[in-house]
Structures are given as structure tokens and as C-alpha cells.
């Protein structure tokens, strides 16, 4: 499944642009969520500058919404750090899964492209690598598209005071979930992967039910990974 012997890690301006264009349609939805965040943050009492700065620098929606829940006259530092870390811990796994290709890049590029790593562009690039296509351009270009939409959307949300009152009624809360599912379904499928996914799903659900909040992604992913080292790919597969 992972083939590191060729030049799949290479990317140029054109490939970045392709990634940007590929995620541009999804980015429109991201902008809508950015607007929802901008509105929610205004209502939570954050100043306009702080809100836009947060979307620009943090660029991780779920953790930003969670930070709003903690916002008050003062904020407990430890709670904020743990919450943000736990929600964004899945980035650790994304970085690790990209490493077989990132390792061939010089340090500045390797860590540079990770600045814009998020769910959608990571999934897109992993799907490309899975079918032996170059993926770093998709990661960077797609990431820039999403980052830009997130920041612009946030800014519009702050300005407009909630043009979209209820993204949920329009089904917009499901965009990211549907996108990620489409990536799963569109990738390789075989019995080994199916078993791995079942292990991951069960572990994730158990963690969701019994372990601290936000641990389910990491627990599920690691469980799936372990399952993959027990049932390894047959070496004759390709």
C-alpha cells in the first residue's frame, strides 16, 4: 500500500494549483462554517481582531469552537491547552501517516506543508498516495484553499452578524463528515482493510463512550494501526 521508492513526494506549482482547485468547491462550505464560527465567537464576546487572528493562526475549527465554550472573563490555561491538544491530536497521526513521503523533502518543505494540514486535504493526499499518485501538492494546495476560506469565512461572519443563522438546517454540518466518508469509500477496499476499519470503529466507539472526551480518534486510529501490523498485507499483492 505504501510505496516510497518513487517520486510521489515531489510537487511543483502546478500540482499545488491542482490541489487548490480540487478542494475549492469544498472550501465554499468551509467558508460557511468559518462564518458560523465568526458569529459564535462574536456572541461569546471575543473582539473582531482576536476572532480573525484565531482563525488565521490556529486554523483548526473544532478546537476553536471548543475554546469558545471555555471563554469567559478569564480562561484557565491548562484546560485550554489540554482541550486544544486533545481535539487536534489527530494531526499527530496525520503527520505520521504522511511521513513516508515527507521524509524525502528538505526540512523547510517538510514542516512547511504541514502548516496547512487538516482533515480534508490530508484525506485527499492520502487517497492519492494510496493509488500511487503524487499527493504533497494536493496537501499544500488543498490546505491553502481551506485555510483561505476559513479565514475569509470567519471574517464575513464577524462582519455580517450571522447571514446564515442555522447551518445545521441546511445540512451543512455534515459536509466534512460526508467528505471524509467519500474518501474512505473511494479508496482501496479489501477484506483486510474492512477488518481494520471494524477494529478502528469499535475502539473509537468504546473510547467515545468510556474514555475522556476527544480521545476516540486517537484510540480508534491506533487500534486500527495495530490491527494492521497483526494482519499484514500479503507481499505478493502488488
Amino acid at each position, binding site marked *: *500500500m*505504501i510505496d516510497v521508492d518513487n517520486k510521489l513526494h515531489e510537487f511543483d506549482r502546478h500540482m499545488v494549483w491542482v490541489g487548490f482547485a480540487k478542494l475549492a468547491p*469544498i472550501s465554499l462550505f468551509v467558508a460557511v462554517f468559518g462564518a458560523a464560527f465568526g458569529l459564535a465567537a462574536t456572541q461569546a464576546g*471575543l*473582539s473582531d*481582531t482576536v476572532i480573525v*487572528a*484565531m482563525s488565521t*493562526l490556529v486554523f483548526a475549527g473544532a478546537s476553536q469552537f471548543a*475554546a469558545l465554550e471555555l*471563554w469567559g472573563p*478569564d*480562561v484557565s*490555561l*491548562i484546560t*485550554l*491547552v489540554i482541550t*486544544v*491538544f486533545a481535539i487536534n491530536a489527530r*494531526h*499527530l*497521526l496525520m*503527520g505520521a*501517516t504522511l*511521513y*513516508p513521503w*515527507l*521524509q524525502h523533502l528538505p526540512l523547510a518543505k*517538510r*514542516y512547511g506543508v504541514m502548516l496547512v*494540514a487538516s482533515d480534508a486535504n490530508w*484525506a485527499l493526499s492520502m487517497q492519492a498516495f494510496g493509488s500511487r499518485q503524487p499527493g504533497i501538492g494536493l496537501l499544500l494546495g488543498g490546505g491553502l484553499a481551506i485555510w483561505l476560506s476559513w479565514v475569509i469565512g470567519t471574517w464575513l461572519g464577524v462582519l455580517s452578524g450571522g447571514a446564515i443563522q442555522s447551518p445545521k*438546517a441546511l*445540512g451543512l454540518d*455534515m459536509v466534512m*463528515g*460526508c467528505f*471524509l*466518508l*467519500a474518501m*474512505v*469509500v473511494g479508496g482501496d477496499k479489501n477484506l483486510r482493510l474492512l477488518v*481494520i*476499519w471494524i*477494529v*478502528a470503529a469499535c*475502539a*473509537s*466507539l468504546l473510547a467515545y463512550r468510556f474514555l475522556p472526551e476527544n480521545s476516540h*480518534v*486517537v484510540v*480508534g*486510529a*491506533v*487500534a*486500527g*494501526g*495495530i*490491527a*494492521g501490523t497483526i494482519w499484514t498485507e500479503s507481499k505478493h499483492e502488488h
Partner: protein
Amino acid sequence: MSIETTGLGALALVLIMAFVTLVTRWGGVYVMSFVPIGYRVRQFIGAMSGSVLVALLAPMALQGDNAARLALLTTAATMLLLKKPLPAIAAGVLAAALFRQF
């Protein structure tokens, strides 16, 4: 320890959040640079990449409302049928929107 959200305190909190998120974006790559990538590690990484998505989606499907479940089901079915992500996502979102209208 608490930080007040007046004035520069709020910006400091944003910078702390940005730093923590950056640690997660860079940490996995950094740690992996010390791990020799042998056959087992490759198998682990390969299996983990799909599992991250599944682990994100499973609670969404189980704990979400019926609209969420219908959206995911529609996306999966459309994707299997057409093998194109955009129509699949659009169909899923539309399904959730329609379901919530009634």
C-alpha cells in the same frame, strides 16, 4: 493558572492555541523522523491512515441524529455507485437538509 481575556490577554490565548495546534501538526512528523520505517511500521501507518477517518466517523454515525446517519448512508451509496466524491457529498448534505425540513 488563568489568563484574563481583556486586552492582550485574549491575543496571548490565541497564540497559545496556535502553538499547541502547531505542536500537533509538526509532532507526528518529528517523532517519525526517529522511527526506522521497516515493514511493520509501514503496515501500521498504512492501516492507521484509513482508521483515523473511520474513528472520526463512527461516533458521528452512531451518536448523530437520523439526518446525520441518512447523510452518511447517502454519501456512501452514491460514492459506491458513481465513484465521484462531489456528487456523493452533495447528495449526503442534501439528504440531511431535506430530512431536517420535515
